[in-house]
């Protein structure tokens, strides 16, 4: 399945109400890692001045290379701020039924009330997130009992019903994590994260480290979980193929900045930012036998990002303005039907053309940013 057909298939499966409200909003968010060792302060600007809004019921993808701040953004959206991660500025707000909630100032009680019941999290590398010396059923009981009145029997019954509903083997409840395969552990973790029917689910690289056959099963499960209650799913992965298969909208992150955000089909068909074009170019396509070209260079170190557009050292289209000024993230004019969120791009030299194989790498001689 090519990414484009997959993208349109994904669009059909999960249709988002056009007038849906924003379930989570971030404004001017700055999440930095501030460490101090032997009196030397080091600041890593993992997420820098980022604004986004995620609508209820959509599957929102966050894409980008490793080290561009995807996981940090997710932690900030989740309100899980543990030193050395520090919120330097901006805000994150949830909006469920009862007014806005400040995600960054959660107290213990808030956390008990919000986490898992409203907002849940499927972690990166689920291999080790289950307690190795506890049976799965007891872990389920611990997680349920933390948020609602229950007995052990009730919890296990609830877990059994939920696993059945998701088409998972209920026998796993009696197992220890090491007795399960990697794919099964990931599925159990997804069930564990969503058993209390959260409205907003954050998933951090849920399919990474699984082989492709198992990945497919996990993607199906995520879709299933999202569809049950029309929850909002925020999916972080570097795998553009997964975005094509699963998401409604994609945000592309580069070096802590949001560089492009649009409907999944637009992102895959008419990406405007050179970085996005590179990301999609690197995907293999059916029938296209030309060699895949990676993006030259590597993402900048975030303790000292380049001036201007952070992508300019690797960008074939870069000019003087890119080196001096930060391009603002602006809606693309004249695109869209006016109801959904606009296509937003942060680039001075947007490419307004459908993506064609092998186009961009011939645009200029590649500078090496090492």
């Amino acid at each position, binding site marked *: 399945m090519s990414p484009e057909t997959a993208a349109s298939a994904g669009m059909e499966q999960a249709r988002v109400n056009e007038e849906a409200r924003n379930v989570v909003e971030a404004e001017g968010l700055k999440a930095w890692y501030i460490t101090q060792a032997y009196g030397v302060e080091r600041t890593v600007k993992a997420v820098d001045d980022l604004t986004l809004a995620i609508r209820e019921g959509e599957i929102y993808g966050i894409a980008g290379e490793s080290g561009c701040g995807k996981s940090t953004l997710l932690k900030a959206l989740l309100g899980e701020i543990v030193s050395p991660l520090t919120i330097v500025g901006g805000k994150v707000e949830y909006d469920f039924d009862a007014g806005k909630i400040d995600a960054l100032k959660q107290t213990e009680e808030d*956390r008990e009330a919000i*986490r*898992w019941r409203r907002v849940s999290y499927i972690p990166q590398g689920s291999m080790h*997130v289950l*307690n*190795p010396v506890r049976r799965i059923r007891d872990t389920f009981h611990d*997680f349920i009992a933390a948020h609602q009145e229950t007995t052990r029997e009730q919890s296990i019954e609830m877990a059994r019903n939920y696993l059945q509903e998701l088409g998972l083997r209920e026998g796993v409840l009696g197992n220890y994590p090491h007795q399960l395969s990697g794919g099964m552990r990931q599925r159990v973790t997804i069930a564990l994260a969503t058993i209390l029917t959260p409205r907003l689910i954050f998933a951090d690289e849920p399919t990474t480290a699984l082989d492709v056959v198992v990945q497919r099963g996990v993607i199906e499960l995520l879709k299933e979980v999202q569809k049950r209650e029309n929850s909002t799913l925020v999916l972080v992965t570097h795998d553009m193929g997964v975005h094509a298969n699963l998401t409604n909208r994609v945000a592309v992150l580069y070096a802590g900045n949001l560089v492009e955000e649009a409907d999944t089909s637009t992102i895959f068909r008419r990406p405007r930012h050179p970085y996005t074009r590179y990301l999609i170019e690197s995907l293999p396509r059916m029938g296209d036998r030309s060699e895949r070209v990676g993006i030259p260079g590597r993402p900048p170190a975030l303790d000292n990002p380049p001036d201007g557009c952070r992508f300019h050292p690797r960008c074939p289209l870069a000019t003087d303005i890119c080196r001096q000024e930060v391009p603002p993230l602006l809606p693309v004019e004249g695109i869209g039907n006016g109801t959904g969120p606009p296509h937003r791009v942060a680039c001075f030299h947007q490419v307004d053309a459908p993506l064609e194989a092998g186009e961009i790498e011939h645009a200029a001689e590649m500078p090496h940013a090492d």
Partner: protein
Amino acid sequence: MTLLQQFILPRLLQWVIVIVVGITITFLIPRLSPVNPIQQALGRLTQFATLEPEAVLQLREQLMANYGLEGSIVEQYFRFWGNLLGGDLGPSFGAFPQRVNDMIGRALPYTVALLTFTTIMGWIIGIIVGTLAAYYPGRLTNLVAGVMIVVYPVPYFIIAFIFLMAFTYYIPFFPLIGVFRGEPFEAEFIATYLHSTFLPAVTLLITGLSFRFIMARALGTAELSSDHVQYATMAGLPDRRLMTSYVARNTMLPQVTDLGLSMGSIFSGTLITEAVFGYPGLGDLLLQAIYQADYNVVMGITLLSIVGIATASLIVDLSYPLVDPRVRYR
């Protein structure tokens, strides 16, 4: 069947080999030592009187026979095993004609009572306090940890001497040497027992506790940063659940191993603490026996110690799968 064949039998075999080799070595070592028990005994007997050379020779042969030191070393070795399997550890050389069995029998309950109590209490308190310290870092925790880290490397006999001086000399509340009056389990015996045992028990508890605290805190801190604890924290699990089932429970494997081995070494006593406090346990007995080249007593205590440690490691080995489901009988 496969469980027995593949897991239990090899370990039992290992246990037997360790004990046989250990006993053989302890049989040989005193016989290689320059102290000759016959000379020692003769020295004691002839200290205040001169004997005819013939009488001395006769006495020497008589002593050799009594001590079981006749014949070549190989003959002695097999005779020794014969007696041992019959449950007889032979006579004491220093306190002839007392039997080693009786001497050890008298000292054993004292040592076992003292060490079982201090080892288990130190283990439990150390793990609880250490895990709490790992879980709640802060000023108070740092203070406690600081004290423990200072106490831990101080040799326990120094602590023993400090306590001895402080509480028997400057504040003469406890006896200088253990005094035990009355028959076992009478009120008087229990009172004098507690009075005499308090200081050695506190000394051992403090040193055991500091080690356990440091170990529990280090293991707990490592466990806290593990993925599964962080995920459970993120999911808003209550602190008590996290601390018990997610942190402490997962550090149990090394702690149980260590407890097992400490329990095994109970049978060798604590040489110095017992000597310092005049506590009539195995350690004190062993010390006297070494001074007097009392082979049989040294052998008897060493044997207990070898069997104790070998058995403890066997039990620890067999109980691993109960503590950690990831360990399978293979």
